[in-house]
């Protein structure tokens, strides 16, 4: 919402300086976004007349103009490309050295196609006073040549822009803003009241409203015998000062009423309207050429005003071109109506029209001002254009519902924590237009018709508090109470935190990727379901909710490789989606490593350089699971994994086949190709929600430590087995021989090559035997060793290496 200081002062009798008014506006909820002083920025631009405009000798689209810049100076030669540069035109001139705000350049003396140009004739867009860049500005023929444009156009007036919240439709007009300021002690509201203009004859046009839900009220009157033309200087200046383009007096009146009184109106050229008007839903296939020059295709959800030939206006949004008023208009129909807010919003959105009328109607205008607004407009029409008014036709309601709120005075203290005396509450509410009856403890408050946002006690509290000032509310310490201090993180929140720290402690770098990825990438990882596809994605590669963190991580790793950083280890802990229900959303931890970003050591190094391999991913996965509190002894590793992993270099981590925690391995070359990434790339992903909850412990004390008094014994064994035999099976077989005595089995060597058959490998294990009750004799140890050999050879088909 834009307005100027002088405009505000038409409605507010005040001596307060601009800065103070602006600060107060912000502090009562009408946030001042900017204060613009155009006069300063536009001081070099002056009014000038084109004395002659001739074809440029070397360019079809250019004209060479001689420009009278006034003050007796010699005419200046300017090369101009605007189609409307013509002899006699009064426009705006800028000499060399001028900064052109709309183009962000400083003008110099130029030679354009061989002809010297010593300045510029400007469009409104170049001055940044409107979007209009169709040719250079056209000023009235009597505009004073040589005078500063900004001053003449009334731009010396500071322009304030308010970032209006959607609830305050009453402040979409200057009068409403002035009312708020008057309540905040910034001056006195100027409100002389509106006198009805007597109709001289019945309105010849009948109005039928087919659907009162779409149009609760409609008022119309005819003014006959008007003389339309440019509006007077004061009105043009009002409009140009806030960036609106004056068109003609009748249209300018409607725009003025919109900004002055938050009352959008529409004017029809009565001679172009055929018969009576009907407010109805549009029919499929109907269309309208609107005042913005575009043709809109309509449907029955759109409310229109039609005459006997067809649609003439998009109700509450924009008028039609054919029935618009121009300088030939002699009879004008002035419409003031109420429209359904939701329907206006939907229509505006659907048609992509952001008009000043839509802006107000979708917020809900003051219903009680429908008729007074029409009276005020009629008065202006008669003042500016003459004519004789008809009586007013009113269909539907010309007022809103009464709203009377029972307001306990204690409510202010209860919700806002501040004491406000009743007399002050009355003063504030009174200035804002509320009527207060009674003296407490519960008063009756009648809400003014223009405050369509106020419905209940809390709204009244807000009115009082915002005018008193929120800064007056004393800060009150918020006691945390005497509840025991307990941890507040849930299990999954703790797992999330620990997973991140564990992975970062392994030298990995945390990424945060998009929750949405492209459909083909989602499909690669088991996603792409219809219920996870966005109906309105921002881009086609951000269209589907991710079923896995890996596509995003792989893309991030590749982007880093493309920047020249290919040895990266990235991880992410975040949400993944398997369906659109809350229970289908999981917290996953995933990581990728590329190149020399091995868990055995990052990068190439004199101490040894390792390329990442699938077991790095396994190590990462296990580190996360351990940190997140998974029962590590219960985890099973099953070779192989989903299709996105290398079939021979991947594994599945599970606790029984029903609870798969995740996967690790090298990415499948086909997956890499589909993701556009360079391999080899290793990856893991585990779902933190799938970790079984640990048993709740009754005490924080750790279980008693059971230390054996006897030395442990270590024995090494090497087995020759088929290459396909899994080391995990050898370890488990050895372990199973005596679960009490054997406390640890580790693999300390795996060898393939010289001295071993090509389809065999040697796996060496170290077994720790921990006696519990007595030192074992050599014979007893040998017996355990023999059992280990027997069990392993039986289970794996291997032999003890000689």
């Amino acid at each position, binding site marked *: 919402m834009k307005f100027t200081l002088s405009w505000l002062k038409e409605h507010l009798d005040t001596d307060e300086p601009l800065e103070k008014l602006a600060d107060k506006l912000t502090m009562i909820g009408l946030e001042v976004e900017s204060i613009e002083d155009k006069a300063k920025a536009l001081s070099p631009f002056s009014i000038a007349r084109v004395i002659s405009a001739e074809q440029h000798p070397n360019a079809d689209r250019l004209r060479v103009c001689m420009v009278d810049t006034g003050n007796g100076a010699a005419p200046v030669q300017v090369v101009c490309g605007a189609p409307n540069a013509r002899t006699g035109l009064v426009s705006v001139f800028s000499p060399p050295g001028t900064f052109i705000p709309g183009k962000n350049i400083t003008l110099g003396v130029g030679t354009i196609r061989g002809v010297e140009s010593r300045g510029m004739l400007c469009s409104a867009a170049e001055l940044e006073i409107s979007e209009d860049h169709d040719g250079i500005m056209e000023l009235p023929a009597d505009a004073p040549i040589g005078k500063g444009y900004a001053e003449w156009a009334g731009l010396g007036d500071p322009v304030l822009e308010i970032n209006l919240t959607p609830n305050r439709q009453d402040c979409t007009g200057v009068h409403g803003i002035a009312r708020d300021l008057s309540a905040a002690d910034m001056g006195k509201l100027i409100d002389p009241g509106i006198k009805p203009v007597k109709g001289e004859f019945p309105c010849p046009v009948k109005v039928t409203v087919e659907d009162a839900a779409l149009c609760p009220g409609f008022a119309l009157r005819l003014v006959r015998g008007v003389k339309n033309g440019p509006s007077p200087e004061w009105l043009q200046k009002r409009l140009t000062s806030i960036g609106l383009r004056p068109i003609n007096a009748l249209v300018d009146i409607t725009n003025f009423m919109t900004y002055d009184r938050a009352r959008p109106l529409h004017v029809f050229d009565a001679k172009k309207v055929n018969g009576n008007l009907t407010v109805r839903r549009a029919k499929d296939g109907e269309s309208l050429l609107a005042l913005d020059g575009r043709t809109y295709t309509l449907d029955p959800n759109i409310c229109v005003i039609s005459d006997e030939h067809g649609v003439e206006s998009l109700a509450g949004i924009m008028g039609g071109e054919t029935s618009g008023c121009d300088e030939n208009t002699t009879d004008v129909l002035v419409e003031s109506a109420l429209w359904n807010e939701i329907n206006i919003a939907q229509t505006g959105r659907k048609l992509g029209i952001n008009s000043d009328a839509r802006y107000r109607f979708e917020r809900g205008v003051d219903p009680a001002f429908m008729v007074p607004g029409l009276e005020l407009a009629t008065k202006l029409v008669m003042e500016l254009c003459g004519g004789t008014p008809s009586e007013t036709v009113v269909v539907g309601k010309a007022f809103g519902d009464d709203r009377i709120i029972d307001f306990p005075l204690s409510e202010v203290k209860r919700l806002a924590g501040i004491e406000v005396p009743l007399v002050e509450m009355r003063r504030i509410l009174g200035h804002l237009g509320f009527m207060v009856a009674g003296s407490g403890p519960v008063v009756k408050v009648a809400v003014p018709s223009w405050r369509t946002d106020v419905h209940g006690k809390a709204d009244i509290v807000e009115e009082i508090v915002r005018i008193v000032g929120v800064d007056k509310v004393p800060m009150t310490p918020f006691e*945390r109470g005497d509840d025991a201090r307990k941890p507040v993180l849930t299990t999954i929140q703790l797992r999330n935190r620990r997973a991140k720290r564990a992975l970062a402690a392994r030298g990995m770098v945390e990424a945060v990727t998009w929750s949405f990825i492209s459909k083909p990438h989602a499909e690669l990882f088991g996603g792409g379901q219809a219920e996870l596809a966005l109906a309105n994605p921002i881009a086609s590669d951000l269209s589907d909710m991710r079923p896995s963190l890996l596509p995003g991580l792989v893309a991030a790793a590749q982007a880093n490789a493309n920047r020249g950083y290919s040895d990266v280890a990235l991880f992410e802990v975040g949400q993944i989606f398997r369906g659109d229900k809350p229970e289908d959303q999981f917290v996953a931890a995933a990581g990728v490593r590329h190149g020399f970003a091995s868990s055995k050591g990052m990068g190439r190094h004199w101490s040894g350089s390792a390329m990442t391999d699938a077991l790095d991913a396994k190590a990462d996965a296990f580190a996360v699971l351990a940190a997140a509190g998974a029962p590590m002894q219960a985890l099973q590793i099953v070779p192989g994994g989903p299709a996105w992993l290398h079939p021979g270099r991947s594994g599945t981590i599970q606790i029984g086949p029903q609870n798969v925690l995740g996967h690790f391995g090298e990415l499948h070359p086909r997956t890499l190709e589909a993701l556009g990434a360079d391999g080899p790339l290793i990856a893991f992903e585990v779902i933190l929600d799938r970790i079984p909850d640990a048993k709740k412990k009754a005490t924080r004390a750790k279980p008693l430590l059971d230390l054996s008094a006897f030395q442990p014994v270590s024995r090494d064994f090497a087995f020759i087995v088929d290459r396909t035999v899994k080391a995990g099976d050898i370890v488990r077989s050895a372990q199973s021989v005596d679960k009490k005595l054997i406390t640890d089995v580790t693999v300390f060597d795996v060898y393939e090559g010289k001295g071993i058959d090509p389809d065999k490998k040697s796996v060496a294990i170290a077994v720790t035997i921990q006696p519990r009750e007595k030192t074992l004799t050599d014979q007893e140890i040998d017996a355990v060793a023999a059992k280990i050999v027997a069990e392993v050879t039986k289970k794996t088909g291997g032999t003890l290496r000689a």
Partner: protein
Amino acid sequence: MTDLAQLESQILDQIAAAGDEAALEGVRVAALGKKGSISALLATLGKMSPEERKTQGAAINLAKDKVTQALSARRDILKSAALDARLASETIDVTLPLREAPAEAGRIHPLSQVFEEVNTIFADMGFAIAEGPDIETDDYNFTKLNFPEGHPAREMHDTFFFNPGEDGSRMLLRTHTSPVQVRTMLTQKPPIRVVCPGRTYRIDSDATHTPQFHQVEGLVIDKGSHLGHLKWILHEFCKAFFEVDHINMRFRPSFFPFTEPSLEVDIQCRRDKGEIRFGEGEDWLEILGCGMVHPNVLRACGIDPDVYQGFAWGMGIDRIAMLKYGIADLRQLFENDVRWLNHYGFKPLDVPTLAGGLST
């Protein structure tokens, strides 16, 4: 010089000349071994008269002691020299560069760090932490929060929608974390004190907007909490979070459908060459929105607004992270450039605590 003295001096010379332990052992055997020269002299004592034996015996034993002592002293010297020589040969290049320790190389994303900082502060004030799904219903994201159907306030949230299901209803990506407040109020009885951190989505993409961003909202519902408490909590939070002794805050009336009265909060700061100082300067920077929970929201969540009351606030995690740590462009948070992450990220052992400092 007697023969004995000569022998002694000769052996002592040989000891001094021995270059290593093996040569020294040779000298010892030649002097004190079974057939050694001094052993041979001792063997002659048996044939001597007692008188002669007395004088000669003492002299020979004296010589033997001297030789033994010299051998021992020389052995110590040679051993030490041999050790020195071995150690010298074992010299390594200690200037070889190390591999960076993984715990030094790894990084926590600034967003994760700031989430932890925020949770730590509010946990200390007695708030629980609640979370909810990203994919929400229209009812929880809008209707229960007093956004009437078709109201322009809905347009302030440029919403990502999913395709309508068979019953015509369509899910959406939550535009704020407020649906978590709804879920909390529907499942818990007051008093309620929670903060709701999480990821949120709006259709927007420029230097200050990304289609996904993060929020933390707070909610208090009880029988006496009012705007004064809200102001205090936010003031305490800002001082703790930005780690400053003083901060000037400005509470402005505003509008949100779900609160009444509604406020926006600015903090005073000075911006100088990309650096931001709080509690000084001329700029007011908007950091959050808040207000008393709207009676319609309480009613929609089954809470009687005449008995219970409370307040809520919401702030952008991305925004406060950028402010605190001097991050210039929001989009960089999601670009995952390792150079950026190494610079703005945190080490895994930099866990924010109130006792040890949030960021130190």
